[in-house]
């Protein structure tokens, strides 16, 4: 299942981003942000004329790149005259995750990051996840009290996303 699900506005700022486990949030933010380049590349690869018939599902982002996974933490030791802080900074290095992209006709992007160690995920499942996501997103947009461009704070959407995520064990 997914470990991170993000909805990105047309202008490429996050409308919604949620990940498990929570402490890796930063890492996923970076991941999703970086994926946008590939998404944009994929969109622009389809000609203008074809844009309407284009399939919304973009498939696997980064199909070729495989990165190494690095040990997870670095510790910065920081001295002050008063006391000493050990600050744990999440190592931002990524990977071992597969990213999938999906772009609606209004150029809102969905990115799902899945744990690639989970081999049981098939393309079809990913597709249906995106479809569910899209439907739920449409519901959010239909809410007359939702101001387009605001971050999504819908309980229904939240619960739908939670259902698609791996529960942190």
């Amino acid at each position, binding site marked *: 299942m997914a470990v991170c699900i993000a909805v990105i506005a047309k202008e490429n700022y996050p409308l919604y981003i949620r990940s498990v486990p929570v402490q890796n949030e*930063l890492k996923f933010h970076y991941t999703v942000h*970086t994926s946008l380049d590939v998404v*944009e590349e994929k969109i622009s690869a389809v000609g203008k004329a074809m844009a309407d018939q284009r399939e919304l599902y973009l498939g696997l982002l980064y199909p070729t*790149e495989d990165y190494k996974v690095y040990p997870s933490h670095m510790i910065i030791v920081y001295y*002050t005259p008063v006391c000493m*802080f050990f600050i744990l*900074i999440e190592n931002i*290095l990524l990977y071992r995750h597969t990213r999938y992209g999906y772009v609606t006709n209004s150029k809102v992007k969905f990115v799902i990051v899945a744990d690639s160690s989970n081999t049981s995920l098939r393309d079809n499942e990913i597709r249906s996840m995106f479809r569910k996501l899209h439907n739920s997103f449409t519901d959010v947009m239909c809410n007359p009290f939702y101001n387009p461009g605001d971050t999504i704070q819908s309980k229904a959407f939240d619960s739908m996303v939670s259902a698609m995520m791996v529960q942190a064990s």
Partner: protein
Amino acid sequence: MAQCVQSVQEFIQDSFVPMVAVLCSEDAEKVTRKNNLNFSELLRPFCRLTSEGHMRDPSNQLQVVKNLRISVNNVVTRPSVPSSGVPGHAHRRLLSEVVLTCQPAEGGVANVITAGDYDLNISDRSLKASVPWYSDWRDTLTELSTSKHYTATTPWFEAYRESFLQSMPASDHEFLNHYLACLLVVSSSEAVPVEKFLKLSQEQHRIQHSGEYTNPKWFIPNTLKYYVLLHDMSQGDEQRADSVYEDMKQRYGAQGCYLLKVNSRTAAAGADEQIPDPWSQYLHKSSLQTPVVVNNTAVENNVGGTSEVDGHDSEEKGSLDNTHPLQLDTPSDTPGSLDALRAVAVETKPPPLTTGVAAATSHGACLTLNDHDRIRLFIQEFTFRGLLPHIEKNIRQLNDQLVSRKGLSRSLFSATKKWFGGGKVPEKSIAELKNTSGLLYPPEAPELQIRKMADLCFLVQLYDLAYSCYHTAKKDFLSDQAMLYAAGALEMAAVSAFLQVGAPRPYPAHYMDTAIQTYRDVSKNMVLAERCALLSAEVLKSQAKYSDAATLLIKMTSEDSDLRSALLLEQAAHCFINMRNPMVRKFAFHMILAGHRFSKAGQKRHALRCYCQAMQVYKGKGWSLAEDHINFTIGRQSFTLRQPENAVTAFRHILTNDSQQTSTQQGAFLREYLYVYKNVTGACEVALPQLPLPCINSSATRVYFGHERRLAEGEKQAATHVSLDQEFDRDLAAMWQDLEEQVVAAAKRGVVPATFQSTQCCLNSQTDNLRFPLAVVEEPIIVEVVFRNPLKVPLVLSDLSLLWKFTLKDFNRPQTQEDSVGDAVPISNEKEASVPRVRVCVTFVSINFFCLIPLCLLPQARLKLLPHQTGQLNILGLVYNLGTSVRGRQDLEIQGPRLNQTKEEKTSVSHGPDRRLDPTITPPMPLLEVFFLQFPTALLCGEIRKAYVEFCNMSRVTLCGLRVASTHPDFFTFGSSSLATPLTPLSPTSFENCSAYKTLATPPGATPGSVAAVTLVSEGDFGSGTGLRGGVSGAGTGGKGITEIPLGEGTLKPGESTQLPMWLRGPDQEGVHEIHFLFYYESAEKGGKISHRVLRHTVFICASRSLSVRATACRSNTLPEEEEEERNGSMLVFVDVENINSSEAGVREFHIAQVSSSSKQWRLHKCINPAEDKDCKLTSRERGKLCFRATRCKPLQAEKYTFADLSLGNELIITSTTPCADFFFRRCQPLESLRPPVAMETQGRHSRSQGVGHGGGDKDIAGVVRKCNEVDLDIIILWKAFVVEDNKQVILEGQLHVALQTIDKEACSLTPKEEAQEMVLLKFKPELPPPMTRPSMEQLSHLIKTNLQYPESYSHPFNQKRYLCMVPVTLTLSNCSLAQVDVIIDLRHKTTSPESLEVHGSFTWLGQTQFKMQLGAQEVMRVQLRACFLHAGVYNLGTPRVFAKLADQGAMCETSQQTATPALIIIINST
């Protein structure tokens, strides 16, 4: 991208150059040492050949050798890099130094790359620290500064690459960096130079062939020896040198030796001459190229030098040490090699004190330009005469060997075929045959001979030949499964394929990939893999295959070297941004990764730069988590790099933006920020810096003028006025302003001055802040600042105070010069040193401790200022301590409301001024305090209560013109001023159980309720004069509720206070009432800036139900003559009183103490209660009825009100005095205003029809008809309630008013509850005028009052043959209207209703049965009738029908008049 100064071809060419070793005698070394250089260093800037060389390839074709460079190095026998393929510490350290010293120039030209919607500023344009060759270095510089096509350089990367490549260890599988030749250098000052040459030659031979040393490696067994005689021009004998040289020529041949003359001047003499110093650019890295210098001293010097240059502190150094444990600390690493080093390179001991910087200044001090030329010539001579022929010869030799042995072309052909045809060998073999990677060929193996030849060809730019040789070699190696060798051949094959002129074949990128993979995975040799990757990436970049290059570079990042990973990641990032569709985000991301690795590698400056560049992409795009992370890193790096300002800015970003971090994270951010901030502020003491936290919601700032109020003082209750605790309510504010306007109008005799401006005591964002607010001297100004804590951790503020500026101004004496001159300078408390002087003008109170708890909605701080002098005050901001000891300020800047009046303002966004914080301090004004004593909170409806008000003048100025305006003027009264006699004791203490009313004991013996006491009162005496007059004249708006407060002399002296009684009457409606008072007063001294002041008070009164009174007036049927007073008609008034109190208030019972009337026309005459019950008592839900007769007043009293009091108890309340009459008149006011709608209801249709223009007659009818039914009688019910309160019986008093307006219409004391506002239908067409209607039948039926007079019983002896009984009956008709009425009396009319069927038999009227007559206004007429009865019995005489119509209305038909009640007569048979 990392654009290189060199082209790719140049770069690769320079990476592989012929290597030349140097062996130097001590004397020769001394000669060069004068220039602070050793011999190889001396040559280094001149090692690039500017002229073309020529040589023949094996097929005897002449080839041009262009731009050749050679590398001259001292012989070092110690292996510089351990053979394991992992760079040693020293090596790493040096690379790190190179990168560290090469930093982007500060303030470089902005270099903006536009990628999509991002504008990236990559401003690291800088000089390349290493200039490739001397002759061109100037050109390079100019090219650098003028070139347009390059975008971003990363000179540190190039420096790194260059150092890296040059320090590549020589390995066995390739020959490229093996020494080809050896220069033997001997000084001419040597006693016997030839002998020395011999010795050196032997030394070289020993090094190469004895087998003692594995290093250096030599290309070919018979290395070219070139003999150089070094002559010092300043010292030696030139003649002798020449002769020695001649001798050498004899011995070694003219092409094998050279005489080099240097040091044409002495160091001291040459100071005046400016000689370019090409070495300075070089020698920075020279230590790398000649690892000889790498000994302990050099390392120390380098470290010392860098810390000087960069100003790094020990912390920095410490971290460097952490990442790279010092070689010094672990001398056991290579003790042997160090010793060896010393033994061989004795001459290289540098003076220990020379630092890198110092050495650079003195290079080549003894060399003239001539000498430079000589050296250049020497190199050229050596290369073209010595080296190239030597290489040429060797190539031929090797070629011959190979051809003879194998047949090169065949092998080449088959290899090609094998490679492209069906060979899957290489891929498989890599995977399977790792264990054979250790395979070593003996040095003379034929396979290596091909490789050797290929390398030779490559070095002299014979790339075609080199390629074919590499290709063959590769095939051979692969078939032998010698993977390391194969990888080397693959690598070089690819490179030479790329370098071939005209590129006959595409660049075989897969060769490179295979090579890298082999190096890395099979041979575990990262150095070689890295070299390969660097070359390949460069080639790929030159072919615009950026994505491939990036992939390659990213693959090379690994854990073992942070520095390399960082540099490669950065290059990869640059690749992403250079793609045709720039991938900005990937760029940013990899920059961050690079920055991370840089910081791990101790390269803080580079790390910072990387993060900053990445920041450009993330900034302000909503990726807050990432942004915070970058900001945090930037902040920390900046701080460690001694850029605290940047650090503060970066941290501020994290804290001020709405951060989504966890609270622990935020806490860490905050601590860090405070720490950094403290360091910054510690550095500069000039002005307090701005703090970013907490956020101040400046528009929510409120300013309050005046003292903080005490709400209660003992039993005194102070006026509520305005306080900061109240929320602003727009409606309320409008209401207050309206009240103030009214009271000002009343005070200014009905006119509101044009300059009127309502008093605002508390300014906030919704008040009108366009004008400078006025504050009074010696009265505090309280500023409430609203904070917002954006963090999830608490913020502690302490020592808060306001920052302000004050300009003195004397408003009283503006003409005096010296005052204004001296005081024009604004005084401010911005600098805390000037506090004592400042105290004179304004004192301020600071808050000691204030904690902002996260998620607390709007924490506010109230700060107080007390101005002591008049002038202009500007409140600038806040000063406070954040956290423990960080002191800073924050300005309060309030943006005014957006202007939206004119077109320009609508189209642009402009804001008006907001002067909330700029009060003008004016001279003293009176200050009123109002206290209420015994002020109730709950009242019964209509209850009268007496309370006391105390007015205090708190200021030093006399107060006058005290007035009060209220929203409920009927609620209170101060009594009428005309009746000056104190009616009740003035002091409230003796008030207990004393009635609020003025009472008289009823004379003993008099029957209660028998006769009314009558008083005449003029309206003007009551109703607090102005109010009513205003009410009459001012059409509803002007001063309807204004009361002048009767102060003793109209003024209140400073410090004085007065107590006045005040009567309250519970509102008629039950429920909670909000009652507002506005006290208005002026200063006795006129002409101040403030014309008046006001004080507000709001009370809440809870009214509970008491009695409900309903009254009806009926015409009495009594005859007018009965009493004189009733000549003008009389009425019966029925009063129904019901106790509707739901006894929760403990009301036991109500007594109706008195009923009074007040009217201009009618008065109550007497009580005609049938019951003898003299005191009417009503317990809960009980109902009582009272009947009264009312008579008309005497006509001359038209303008005066007649008060008639009918006491039912034993004391008489004089209603015509305060407070009863006051309340009576006060309640009239709203009634007056209520009347129009009432009138509309009753006769509105009429008045409307007039407007349409129908005849005036209708109006008359209406008027007449109404008049005839109208009663204008007000009944006042005075009651007493017995209430049990705390086991004590309390008597409460009250009065209720009922206004009787129409006869037979019930009126109620409770104004009918406002019916739910009827939904008004929207009508788009004007409503049709309603059809003209006449006065209703019902109204018309009241025109004539009829009365039958007859004996109640009549005895008649029927049995005495007198069968008929005649009874005389008088019918009295009285005209109630003021018009002539035609009346028809019809006696024949029989009732047709079944119920009135004569049961007892019928009677008949005798005589005339129909009368027609006319009655004048209020005329009474009697008609004599006779009734005839046949039997005894009870008869109803009320059968005559009276029809009436107004005399002048011909068209109208007569209306049947209401008959009197059944008139029963009893006929008795008297027998």
